[in-house]
């Protein structure tokens, strides 16, 4: 194999720089040669070369499903990548408890909710409930944390009202339903409300969900964001390191 040039990286199939890509999509075009040609033209417009329609299936109602392989001639310079990553280190539960004992004179208060219309508590429960996720204990199991989980379908207004009573150090918001990007507007609205209430700067705002990332969270005005597969200890690591001593 020839040497990989990190300044000119192409997609890899089985030979360096072969640029192999796989795509699958449907078109609102009746099944037939026209549908296959439409798929090939679409791939060429995407900058792909030599598109091969390997599978086409008649979905009915004038739709066709296609599996296409093609070659991408494009390259990316991996020496110039800039990504937003969390600066804090990943600690285990014992290290988190030890750091918290050193840094804080009281238990940190964590308030969690699944906000807006969202009724999917799987994410927030996995992070907060004692049971946790994938063998990693939830935040309720941490001695250094005092957790309140408001559950599903909590309005932003109610969340902030609860915050006035509970005085949290951290607010965790879960958003699973992302249809028409409702999670973005809902999360941004929470930050606006928190700023109007004057509580934004005192509290660490963290969001999580399968379509969220740290980068998106920062764009929306949050302090951090966690995506799919996040373990409770990752969240706990972040907050004990990020919060100033109190």
């Amino acid at each position, binding site marked *: 194999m020839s040497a990989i040039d990190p300044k000119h990286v192409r997609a890899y199939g089985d030979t360096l720089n072969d640029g192999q890509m796989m795509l*699958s*999509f*449907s078109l609102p075009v009746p099944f037939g040669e026209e549908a296959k040609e439409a798929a090939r033209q679409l791939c060429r417009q995407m900058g792909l070369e030599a598109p091969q329609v390997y599978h086409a*299936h008649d*979905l*009915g*109602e004038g*739709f066709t*499903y296609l599996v296409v392989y093609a070659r991408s001639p494009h390259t990316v310079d991996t020496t110039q990548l800039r990504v937003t990553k969390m600066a804090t280190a990943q600690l285990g539960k014992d290290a988190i408890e030890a750091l918290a004992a050193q840094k804080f004179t009281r238990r940190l208060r964590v308030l969690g909710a699944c906000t807006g*219309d*969202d*009724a*999917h*508590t*799987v994410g927030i*429960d996995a992070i907060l*409930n004692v*049971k946790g996720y994938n063998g990693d204990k939830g935040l309720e199991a941490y001695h250094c944390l005092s957790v309140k989980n408001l*559950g*599903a*379908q909590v309005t932003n207004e109610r969340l902030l009202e609860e915050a006035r009573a509970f005085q949290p150090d951290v607010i965790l918001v879960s958003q699973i*339903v*992302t*249809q*028409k990007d*409702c999670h973005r507007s809902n999360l941004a609205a929470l930050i606006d409300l928190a700023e109007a209430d004057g509580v934004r700067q005192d509290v660490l705002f963290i969001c999580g969900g*399968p379509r969220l990332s740290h980068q998106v969270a920062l764009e929306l005005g949050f302090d951090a964001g966690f995506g*799919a*597969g996040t373990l409770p200890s990752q969240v706990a690591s972040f907050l004990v390191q990020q919060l100033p001593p109190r």
Partner: protein
Amino acid sequence: MSELVATFAPIPPGFGCPPLDLDSASVARARSLAQQIAVEVQERLAGQSTLAIERTVLRLFGVTGATADGEPLANRVVMALHTAGLLTGGVARPFCRAMALTGLDAQALAEAVAADRVDLRAHADCLDVVPEVRAIGETLAQAGVARILARRHEREALIGKLGQGVQPLKYVIVASGNIHEDVIQARVAARQGADVIAVIRSTGQSLLDYVPEGVTTEGFGGTFATQANFALMRAALDEVGAELGRYIRLCNYASGLCMPEIAAMGALERLDMMLNDALYGILFRDINMQRTLCDQRVSRRISALAGLIINTGEDNYLTTADAVDAAHTVVASTLINEALARQAGLRTDQLGLGHAMEIDPMRPDALLLEIAHAALIRHLFPGAPLKYMPPTKHMTGNIWRGHVQDALFNFVGVLTGQGIQLLGMMTEAMHTPHIHDRYLALESAQLVFGGAMSLGTELRVEPGGKLEARARHVLAEAVVLLEEMAREGLMAGLARGHFAEIARSPTGGRGLDGVFVKDANYWDPTADAITAALQALGQLPARGEAQP
């Protein structure tokens, strides 16, 4: 063991479940405890009604439509009495009395009340149901029941004429938020082999204390359940079904704060299945337990009359609790759901009791444990069209792995004789299904169901082996839990968090303000008409006979 499987849809040759040697005393004990729990809670709540139940009375009377600002007339009429503290005798008496005195029909009267042209409060003080008023109520109630029965007979005739898919029925969801897009997705799914189309509701709908009106094109994570949307999808599925020569079933959700009302709408629009769980709203939507337990009874009586299949939601328990540790809670809950459903007049072949495949697939012997659980449920409910739910908790963005998990799920479903298979989607963890996700899922199901069609009646479980031991163990644990709940009562059991590791208080949650104690003069002619119709159908014991 083909006698185990349900007869609600055709059974392919050899379809069934391997025999399982269960302790018959434990099975009998579990069922009798569930019955005891159901009777206790029903007796406790018999004296209560709810806003949703009263609105359902009006829906069955034929009241439909909304005010210009979108408030349904059924809500407006019921609230006119409730806010004045005049609803304890039920909505029927003042409403029918006002009809008698004004000469208006039900719809015209509801419109007049909404326009403040008739003040119902003036009709609530007369406590007697005079013969003329009684006759109006009984006639309206009979007409409502007749409309529902007509749709039931229509379904039976269509299935007879068109035929239908074989078990396990392939059930897929549509959830675009826009009913017109849903129709396209559903028609494509039917052409790819789907037998049941479920329109997932917009995520906030279960907490709305009214049913939105009209055709809707915006929703989040699903599409609003409205009577107009029901009718649109029904017509589309009838059309494509006629072309395919296969009756396509339609499913929606009679759950949340409008449980009985949506059941009535579904019955009137010939839906074939309804998600309808006695406990789900309490646990997962924090709806008050008195509210849901009252509402579920009325909704199930209507579904019993409509001849549709209810689906219970025990699969959800395993999304919050561990699927191995909590397997017995699913069994206990399905038994309670069954007992409550039978009290409402649902026949065995209407009980789509829910369970799921949610064990971590990387756990050694995960498949063996799943087969043990699925076979146990199959053996506990012979003749019921069990609804088996796919992996969700352990689905990731790795769609290829997800597709394999779903194929294994399909294998367990056909091997154990499940009646309704909710097909998993490879994109489960990512978004509501794309048009080809459904096609790929249906193709996989057809491949697995066809290839493993008669394995269930050919294979034998090793006596005294791991699989049998697991099934017996889960049943024994379920009996222990049911003993405890029978001692405490269902409501106290829910308050202690026995199910899904979620605790709810009898006076907590949403919708308690919509529960009221019926006074001595309470009158609901629709309840009497439904009971009489269910007795005539042999679904409820005739007066004086004991509950079976």
